């Protein structure tokens, strides 16, 4: 029985399966449009953001960890001292997101009934910082310090073998908060995954307040008033960042192969990874002519794809489906939203192209270190 559950979890957690599931399920959990909202209501998914949903979620997470603790294979990763923060992360993220959505749904209802949000108080009815806030801060600080001291006493800080430049440990992982980046590196060349994407993340995050011109939902929890912005951000944060960290921590083993959480980390697991570039697909496999000598001709199709995706697609969208939106926010905002949005979307797209077609690069010019 338990073994079957474990096997099922192993299969489900393969990135191809779990990532697809999360991506497909996501709009039903954070519904961005009325249609999704309808299904969200109809199938009772909204109950996730009620108290039973909270208990259910906490139970599922705890169940996973408890089973994992008693599993000889998962035990190894789970009890690594450096992985403890990730367990904390999973719990705290679930609790806080649940709490925000729970409050948001309560507020949405109040707003619908013409009431003010829960957080609203009469502006003249203020409290004194001494003692009301100072004491809370003081207590929070003491409790947190106690927690930190207990943690430090119970878990010794790890120290591995002395540095040896000739032998890379297998697997070799980045600090946990960068595992999302390390996962991206599997699908993109370092200059994209290591430089361009991180810069886009930082600049894109800083640009959020300038791109999201929806004035509603400022200063209180709410969902419905800002559901599209919420949906996009949460997809990036939960699936493309936090979930990739979980994959990197628990599901990546020797040779950076994928392993289910309950699977044994076999360093000799053979996974065929013969990746093929788009140019090879076209010139060698389809046309059968061999690669042209001229780099630009060789990669021409790749450049066309890139221009179509980043350049033409937004223009077409602005003329058709997003017409009203484009007129509302104007060309400058639209350009930036598309730049960051499409770059973000490029990650899952490239992941699927890798999984489905073993596609390595859309543009492959190693001569210039220019691979996309």
């Amino acid at each position, binding site marked *: 029985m338990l073994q079957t559950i474990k096997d099922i979890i192993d299969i489900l957690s393969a990135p191809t399966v779990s990532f697809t599931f999360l991506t497909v399920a996501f709009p039903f959990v954070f519904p961005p449009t009325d249609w999704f909202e309808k299904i969200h209501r109809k199938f009772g998914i909204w109950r996730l953001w009620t108290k039973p949903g909270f208990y259910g979620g906490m139970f599922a997470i705890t169940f996973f960890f408890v089973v994992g603790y008693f599993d000889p294979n998962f035990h190894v990763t789970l009890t690594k001292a450096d992985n403890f923060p990730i367990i904390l992360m999973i719990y705290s993220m679930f609790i*806080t997101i649940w709490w*925000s959505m729970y409050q948001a749904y309560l507020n949405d209802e109040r707003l619908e009934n013409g009431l003010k949000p829960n957080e609203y108080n009469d502006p003249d009815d203020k409290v*004194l910082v001494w003692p009301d806030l100072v004491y809370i801060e003081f207590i929070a*600080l003491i409790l947190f310090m106690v927690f930190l001291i207990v943690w430090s006493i119970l878990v010794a800080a790890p*120290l591995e073998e002395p540095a040896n430049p000739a032998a890379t440990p297998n697997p*070799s992982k980045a600090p946990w908060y960068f595992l999302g980046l390390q996962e991206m590196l599997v699908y993109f060349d370092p*200059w994209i995954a290591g430089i361009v994407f991180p810069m886009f993340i930082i600049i894109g995050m800083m640009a959020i*307040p300038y791109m999201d011109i929806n004035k509603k939902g400022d200063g209180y929890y709410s969902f419905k008033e800002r559901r599209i912005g919420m949906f996009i951000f949460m997809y990036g944060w939960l699936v493309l960042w936090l979930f990739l960290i979980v994959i990197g921590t628990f599901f990546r083993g020797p040779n950076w192969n994928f392993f289910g959480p309950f699977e044994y980390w076999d360093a000799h697991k053979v996974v065929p990874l013969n990746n093929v570039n788009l140019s090879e697909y076209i010139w060698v496999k389809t046309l059968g002519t061999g690669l042209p000598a001229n780099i630009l001709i060789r990669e021409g199709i790749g450049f066309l794809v890139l221009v179509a995706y980043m350049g033409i697609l937004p223009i077409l969208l602005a003329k058709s489906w997003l017409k009203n939106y484009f007129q509302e926010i104007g060309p400058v905002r639209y350009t930036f939203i598309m730049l960051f949005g499409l770059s973000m979307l490029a990650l899952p797209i490239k992941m699927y192209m890798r999984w489905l077609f073993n596609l390595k690069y859309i543009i492959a010019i190693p001569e210039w*270190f220019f691979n996309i």
Partner: protein
Amino acid sequence: MENKNKKSFLERMGESQVWKSIIRSGVPRSRRQRMQAILGSVFLHLHPARIPKHAVKIGYTWCMGGLSFFLFIVLTITGLLLMFYYRPTVEYAYTDIIDMAEQVPLGIMRELHRWGAHAMVLTVWLHMLRVFMTGSYKPPREFNWGVGVLLMTLTMFLSFTGYLLPWDQLAIWAITVGTNMARAHPFIGHEGPGASLLAIGDINLVHAGSDVRFALLGGRFVGEASLLRFYVLHCIGVPFITMILMAVHFWRIRKDGGISGPL
């Protein structure tokens, strides 16, 4: 309090010359005194004297911004203590770390520092999440959100530079991979796109000995010079910038009208 003439110890203390010289408003009892206690203190007047009711609720701020700041202070103190024992050289770094745990009484300083650093990354993330969830980045707080994003980046960079210092396997390989990304930086990394364009005749301007990665590592490999550079960045460079940005962050919270809230 039954006896009007008998003053409590606290009251008498509050009236003493020493107390009054430090906290002019005496013991914060009355409404006025309480406000004075906040306004008269360098540290506490980071806060306004009065705030809206919802702003003191844990359910609203989750205390995460405050805890991030607190952790920054804890990390500064514990880090300073670690510096008493740690020498940033390939020869000593690893053994100093071992000695620190084994030869120093109550040797959990390293744990406090390491777990505190992990915790700070988490609290900063949670803080960011709550700011997003309450829509608090919206005008007039756009700028402060931007400062926040930089603070988050710096927090992670602080944690990352500290990762190298124990000079164990985990450390050097994480840094090797991390800094090799710099090698792929367009134009200024020697294996980045465009780097080969920056050349005079046959001589490449950007090569393994002159690119950003070299500047970061002080060499072509992670070695002695890298350890020293990361140590300096970790202990002085990055915390310094972080502190400045925190000052801006806190100042702006007040200037943007205090904690966000519904109108």
